[in-house]
């Protein structure tokens, strides 16, 4: 049974079966069938690499349009920290909050503010006795899904705390219910403004038994185009923001680490690099570290496919925005304990999705067949058969989801042989 709801999908009309996405998918979740890409839903981690790479723009992310605001009487915007890095001439971060109110939101709760709380509690968490090191960040939903699918042995290394988006959603709702008792619970909408499809999937599916507290997800890019029309540099800024350098830096790779005020950390970004680091942690092949921050997108959240700005330019913009911000505006005051509702309460059960068969003996027979078949295949990973590599193709053939005749390189030899014999018989 597969009930995971994805946000990355294919626009079949636009796809011409070119194999580009096939070769860039980090989990080998794509095959080309009948000249169109097909996504294996069990393997897809919604990283968005195929959206980034598709030359026909046939891969898309599913998220709510801004008219979702009409579904609620009181709409709270939860802007991701990456939003501040999108604008060309943004002098004060406060203007973004102002703009969000102008385009129809009733209140703003910055995820950057919640991130500062998570940073403060992470510093406490790292000092707690018995915590398994290195602690791996729980912030990137794509990394979390990759760990559940492929690196379940690292489960106990994950920071047992909800990501900033969920803390923000919880606090935003509490605030709205406190300040506006006139609204019923379902009349309040907590709306996340997201840089990536990974977060959309996280909100749709939750994590294990945990249900997300976000009600809808819109994209940074849609919001950006609405905002730029409303944000006039001449307007007086009435709003103030509730975060500092620490919170805004969560938008880029290394930002979460820097907030730990500790030197023993590592930050890796880009899904391939993340994969490699996870492999090395699993093998015990890393130096002694306290904390590991992993972001599926290059550059961190500013590299998400639902943003508008080039991630490197976005990073440069963050630096200038950071300059006049206080270090942090959110310190932990309520004692030496992490509040219970900040904890990650459950973890998805491990499903060995890549196993060949339920029976070990049968799996071994199939693996032996795959090895044999691999030796016959050309080994050039051309993708023409519809599988990303010859190894994956051999696996598909043994699993009976592909036919050996789909290998055009092998077919070429067959055809050549046939033509040669035909020629010989003509010569006679």
């Amino acid at each position, binding site marked *: 049974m597969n009930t995971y709801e994805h946000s990355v999908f294919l626009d079949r009309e636009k796809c011409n079966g070119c194999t580009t996405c096939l070769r860039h998918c980090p989990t080998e979740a794509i095959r080309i069938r009948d000249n169109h890409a097909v996504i294996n839903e069990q393997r897809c981690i919604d990283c968005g690499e195929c959206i980034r790479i598709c030359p026909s723009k046939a891969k898309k992310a599913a998220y709510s349009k801004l008219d979702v605001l009409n579904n609620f009487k009181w709409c709270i915007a939860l802007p991701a920290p990456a939003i501040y890095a999108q604008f060309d001439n943004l002098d004060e971060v406060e203007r973004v909050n102002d703009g969000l109110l102008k385009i129809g939101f009733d209140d703003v709760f910055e995820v950057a503010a919640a991130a500062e709380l998570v940073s403060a509690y992470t510093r406490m968490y790292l000092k707690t006795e018995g915590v398994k090191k290195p602690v791996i960040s729980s912030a990137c939903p794509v990394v979390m899904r990759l760990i559940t699918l*492929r*690196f*379940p*042995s690292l489960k106990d290394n994950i920071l047992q705390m909800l990501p900033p988006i969920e803390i923000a959603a919880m606090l935003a709702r509490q605030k709205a219910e406190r300040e506006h008792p006139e609204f019923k619970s379902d009349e309040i909408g907590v709306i996340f403004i997201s840089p990536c499809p990974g977060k959309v999937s996280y909100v749709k599916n939750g994590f294990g038994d945990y249900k997300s507290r976000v009600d809808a997800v819109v994209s940074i890019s849609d919001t950006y185009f609405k905002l730029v029309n409303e944000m006039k540099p001449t307007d007086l800024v009435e709003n103030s923001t509730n975060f500092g350098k620490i919170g805004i830096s969560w938008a880029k790779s290394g930002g979460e680490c820097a907030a730990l005020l500790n030197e023993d950390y590592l930050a890796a970004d880009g899904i391939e690099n993340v994969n490699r680091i996870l*492999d*090395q942690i*699993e*093998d*015990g*092949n890393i*130096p002694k570290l306290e904390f590991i921050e992993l972001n599926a997108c290059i550059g961190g959240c500013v590299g998400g496919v639902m943003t508008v700005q080039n991630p490197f330019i976005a990073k440069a913009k963050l630096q200038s925005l950071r300059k006049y911000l206080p270090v942090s505006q959110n310190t932990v005051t309520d004692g030496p304990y992490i509040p219970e509702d900040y904890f990650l309460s459950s973890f998805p059960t*491990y499903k*060995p999705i*890549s*196993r*060949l*068969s*339920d029976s*070990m*003996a049968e*799996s*071994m*027979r199939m*693996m*032996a067949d795959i*090895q044999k078949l691999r030796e016959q295949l050309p080994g050039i990973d051309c993708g023409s058969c519809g599988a990303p590599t010859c190894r994956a193709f051999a*696996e598909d053939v043994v699993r009976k989801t592909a036919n050996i005749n789909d290998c055009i390189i092998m077919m070429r030899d067959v055809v050549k042989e046939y033509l040669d014999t035909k020629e010989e018989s003509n010569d006679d």
Partner: protein
Amino acid sequence: MSEVLNFRFLVDGEDFTSAGQASVKVKKNLRQLGISPETIRRVSIAMYEGEINMVIHARGGVADVNVAEDYVEIVLADKGPGIKDINQAMQEGFSTAPDSVRSLGFGAGMGLPNMKRYTDYMDIQSTVGEGTTITMRVNIE
């Protein structure tokens, strides 16, 4: 006794940066066989340590991974200098790694002890001047 699956990897002794690649490949295969994450972790740590040892001390060698229904066996064979005193080599902290390797963070003298710790069976056959063969087994529950 049913069939045993074999995966063979040539461990390149010239390229230090490639050390550890075989254990990554083994992991993928073991996952497909439906072996538990904990068993896979133990195999990959033991295999990784063994690979590094072959690169540091023996300029590479051959790693065979044999999978049977109830165990995973790792056989690491090299034609390196051999181990003079196996009991001494098994002690935590004992290392003959050169300084150049230590500066990279290796050579802490934990390789062989770790291999023993993470496996259910370990045997070392070594002749000075000829080479070393290490056989390890991790049982599949």
